Each structure stands twice: as structure tokens, then as C-alpha cells.
């Protein structure tokens, strides 16, 4: 479609003043009866649930031990190579095994792409909703103790 020639018209001072008076009167009359906000507000609870924050390791409900099985799949998928594991996983099935000895993540390299939680067969690693921790980190590497803290 070709734009109409109404948009290209020019006018002088007097016509501009008349337009201004017309819109002044019309806008005040139409806004007298309005009380609500013109824009739609998004509910704040939706924003917190889905937000991708820093990674967190999960615990079992019965005895407080790690869900992690030590298969090492999250280490191979990570695009920036920030996860390092030490575990023995010699069983044939992926969902059975021992917890690893050490689990380190370099937080400054993590891009929060959510690939490690998609690959995990046991759902042991997850991205939580808060991201306030980035200003308080003393060292780069986070061990198992810090990753299972609830804050």
C-alpha cells in the first residue's frame, strides 16, 4: 500500500494553534471520567517464577543427601565448560549411582542457558529464581556447600 498524501501536508502558525486548542479541549473532557490506569500491569508473581537465576543442587526428601548420580552429562553439554565433576559412575543404567566427591562451578563463566537441567536424567540441578548473589561472591568457584544453601 502506498501511504496517503494526508501525512505530508504542511501548515503554518495559525492552523497549528487551532489544532492545539482542539486537542486540549477534547483530551481534558475525555479524561475527566477516567480513574483507572491506561496501561495494563503484568502480575508480579509471574515474573519471579520463571526467571533464570544461579544454579542450585537439589536434595532428597527422606535423608538429606544429594540427588546427583555423577554421570557427568552436564559437564559435556555446557558450552563454556564451567562444570567439573569427580565421581565414579560405572553402572549400566543412568539413574542409579553414588553421589560425587566434589562438584565445582565457576559462576562468572555461567551464561544461564538452562542446558544442564534439560540433560540431567534425575533432575538434580536447576536454575533458581534469584540472581542477587552476583555482587557478593568472594571467589569464582562454588563448591557443594554453597550450591545447596537455601537463601
Amino acid at each position, binding site marked *: 500500500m502506498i501511504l496517503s498524501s494526508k*501525512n505530508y501536508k*504542511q501548515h503554518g502558525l495559525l492552523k497549528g494553534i487551532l*489544532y492545539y486548542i482542539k*486537542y486540549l479541549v477534547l483530551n481534558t473532557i475525555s479524561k475527566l471520567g477516567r480513574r483507572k490506569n*491506561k*496501561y495494563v500491569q503484568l502480575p508480579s508473581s509471574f515474573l519471579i517464577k520463571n526467571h*533464570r537465576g544461579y544454579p542450585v543442587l537439589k536434595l532428597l526428601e527422606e535423608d538429606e543427601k544429594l540427588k546427583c548420580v555423577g554421570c557427568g552429562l552436564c559437564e559435556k553439554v555446557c*558450552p563454556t565448560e564451567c562444570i567439573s565433576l569427580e565421581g565414579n559412575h560405572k553402572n549400566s543404567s*543412568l539413574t542409579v549411582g553414588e553421589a560425587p566427591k566434589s562438584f565445582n562451578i565457576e559462576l562468572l563463566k555461567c551464561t*544461564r542457558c538452562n542446558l544442564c537441567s534439560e540433560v540431567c536424567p534425575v533432575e538434580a540441578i536447576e536454575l533458581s529464581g534469584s540472581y542477587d548473589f552476583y555482587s557478593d561472591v568472594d571467589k569464582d568457584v562454588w563448591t557443594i556447600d554453597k550450591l545447596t544453601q537455601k537463601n
Partner: protein
Amino acid sequence: MITSRDLTSLNDLEYDNDVHYLKTSCEEVFELMLYLKEHLSMTKLVDIFVIDRLKLQKDNRFCLNYLLKNLEFNKYICVQLEFDTPNKIESISFIWPNAFFWESEILNHYNIQFNFELPPNEFSGLMRKDFYKSKVELQTQDLNESNSTLKLKPSHYLQQNELELELSLQDDVIQECKINTGFQFRGIEKSCENLTSEHLMTFSDKWNPNKSLFFNVLCSDTFERMLSIQVTERAMAIRMIMMELNRIMEHCYTIAMICYEMKFSKYYSEMMIYLEKIRGLVRFYCGEDISTSFSCIGGVRYEIPQGWASTCINLLDSIEQGIIDFNKVIQSSSIWNEILLVGKISSLQALEYGISGPSLRASGINYDLRKKSLKYFYKDVDFETPVGQEGFVLDRYLVRIEEIFQSIKIIMQVLDNLPSGKIISSDSLSFRSFKDKDNIFNEQKYIDVITKEINIPNSQIYNSLESSEGEIGLHIVGDGGNKPLRFKLYSSATNTFSLYPKVMDGLDYQDALLILASLNINMKEVER
């Protein structure tokens, strides 16, 4: 070797994904290009780049590619030269004036000699396969103090982009304009040669953070075309919705920048509020607003949550009413219609330099990639493309406002008829097809696919999309392994960047900044 008399018409050639490959020698290139432009009407030069094949074969190491395009039938021709180290190659900037930028880049990166000369560089030969790190020393520059030049660097309070403008003035009128670059080079293409296809999806939204949703769709679409994988219908609809939302966000940003240069601060803040509301919508869908990686090979990663569609419809209704009021009030002032009649781009200039997008449509040419290459559901949705009359800044503003209304119309039609089904197709070669929510179907294959990734076949492919500023494209060359041999990004911002110094004709420096704001050149796409 093919001479120019063997090619008679476009219908006799064989096409592989709309591209035809030709091989010639170094002496016959210039005549072939003249013949292709006049007789076969290849009006646009898209791209020039070099492939380095040191590890595969020892002779004929380099391969120069020229990509040409025919606008009417939407077909491409790729002319290839193979050589070791030639003496000098003739440059094509006599035929297409926008070829100078890529040839000077090849001289800097690969150390291949052309007709012209440039000052030497420390990092010359950067993109070759046998380039090693060396010591780098800082250089200090002498300050040229002359009364008649004005330098606008990125740290200047008037400058909003990452350019350096050198304007030589005489009594407040611009005589000459030069552009210096180099602030945004990050070495993307060389680092992409070390990443596999799954990792490239998470890296693709950092090439330009304002248009992260467009580049996600482009990256996954080229891999699907190369491996011939079908996408489900629901994933196609979700990708279309996200692309149109990104288009609305970018148009709001350029209109806000035009109002900022005209010192209308109230309207600048109103447009930025609309931008933040739509960003909240995208954050509600996939968790992040800037570095989203929402698409993968075979479909889309995230499902539409409950309550998203109704908030989307309510928000877009209120934004549409707001922009109609905004347009009426701003166009009723006489300042707006007079000051914005600067920066004319004629249709001849636009075709010669190869511009695309809303700045091409504002000069009077009706061309839209969404109507030519009919992808996902663009053939079933009815919308119109607005065309301006002359190439001033006022036309680019009017075209963008009309495009916002058309994008809202597209989103409403798609949301009314959302197809149901799965998000990811069952024959995609990633690990997601072997896993459901609770169980894994085949454990041995699951481990195999993650450790040894998808192999890229031994071929070339070129794919393109219509983004909010023009055409963006990807060129991938594979050699049988799981990492690409050559990875080339193309965006139409390079063409407007080379056209910009020639639009000045008796203007102030404030008008020059106005024209820059209306073209919306992002230097992250130009320099990569």
C-alpha cells in the same frame, strides 16, 4: 571454466536451496560480472568472503566467493575463484560501490592483495588457519588540533552509537565526513569455528542483543535446512509470534531515538515505556529478555504458559490505542513536518548500494522478503507492506509506524488459530527426542548423541530472514566433522553504513546526528 556466452537464462540452471555455484578463473571475473549485471539482471551484491582450506588440501588453498541476487525471482548465484597466492585481484567497486568495505576487510584479515592499498596493521592475517598469538604493544596517537574539524567519539555526550565521526566544518556547514571504526570487533566468526551446533544456539543471541530473537530463529533454521529436518506446526507459529514482537520493539526504539535528537523528552520516555512492557512479556515466556535462547534444532524449547495469550492480547490493544494518539498529537505540530525533510536517499542510490528494509521502502520501492520467500505461515496470513514516496527522514518515520500496526494484526491472527501438538519433532537429531518428562526411552543412544554431536555434511548453504532493519543472512560451510569450516554473518547494516557519508549536502552537525538515528545502524552487526 565457463565463458559468458554459455549462460542465457535463469531457468536452465540447477539450484541447490535457491543457490547456483559457478567456477571461473582470475582473468575472466570482471567480464563475467558485467555480463551478469546487465543481461541476467543480478542487481544486488550480497556478500564477499574467503574460505581457507589448509588442512584439507595443499594446493589451491583459498576460495573467494561472490554472492549475487536477483530481486524478481529470488534466486542467488555464487561465483567461486580458487587460487594459492595471486599477484593482484581487480576490485569490483566500479560495478557495485558497496564492495569496497568487504574487500578492505579481506585485505586486513587474510592478507590477499587487491588493486588499492591500505596502511599496514598489526593484526593482518588474523583469520588464516596458521595464525599464532604474538605480543601486542599499545600505540599512542598524535592529536591533530585544527580549528575546522569536529570529532564525535563514543564518549562524547552527543553520540549515541559506537562510531567515530570526523566532520570538517566551514561556518557550521559540513564539507566532508569520515567514519572510523574498530570499537566493537569481538572476533565472533573465528570463535564460532570451535563450537558445535548445539552450543551455537546459546551463543547466537549475543551477536546483537537487541535482536536476539531474530538471530535465534535464523541459526536454527539454517541447520534444519542443511540436515533436512521438518518442524512441527506449533513451533512454526511460536517462532512467528516472537519475530513480530521483536520487530515492534525495534521500531519503538528508533522512534524514541528520533524524538531524543529533536529534544522531545516526554515522547522519548513514552516510547521506552512501551518497549519495557513488551520485554516483560518475553521475560514471562522464556525467563530472560536479552539473552534468550528459545529455539533449538527441531522446534522450540519452552511451552507457552497459562495466561500468556490473554495478557498479550490486552497489552497489544492498549499499545495500539496509545500509538494512534501519539501519532495524532506529534503530527499536528508544524516543527515536526518541516525539520524532518532532510537526508534524502533516492531510489537509484538505494538499489546501487543494496539497502533493504524500511529505509528501502521509504524511497519508493516495494520489496519485502516475507512475501517473496514464503516461509512458515506467511502465505496464510494477510497483511500489507507500506511504501513511502520520497526518501526523507519523515518517510522512514511514517513507514515504521504503519509497520507496527501490521505486526499487531499478524499476531492477533496467529493467536486466534494456534495449532495444537508437540513442540519438538520426533525426528530431530538432538537428545530431546529420546527423553520425555520422567523417563528416558533409549539410554545408550541418549549418551551417544550427547558425547558425539551432530555431523555437518560436506556442502554449503545460505539462508536469510527479514529482520526489522533489513535482511540478515548466514553462510555455513561444512567438511564432514561436527564443527563448521567457515561461518559468515551478513547484515544489511553494512550497506547503509557505506552509504551514510554521501548523504550530507550543506547540513549542520545536528542534522547529521538526526539522520544517523533514523537509520538505526548497530555497529555490532557491521564489525562482528
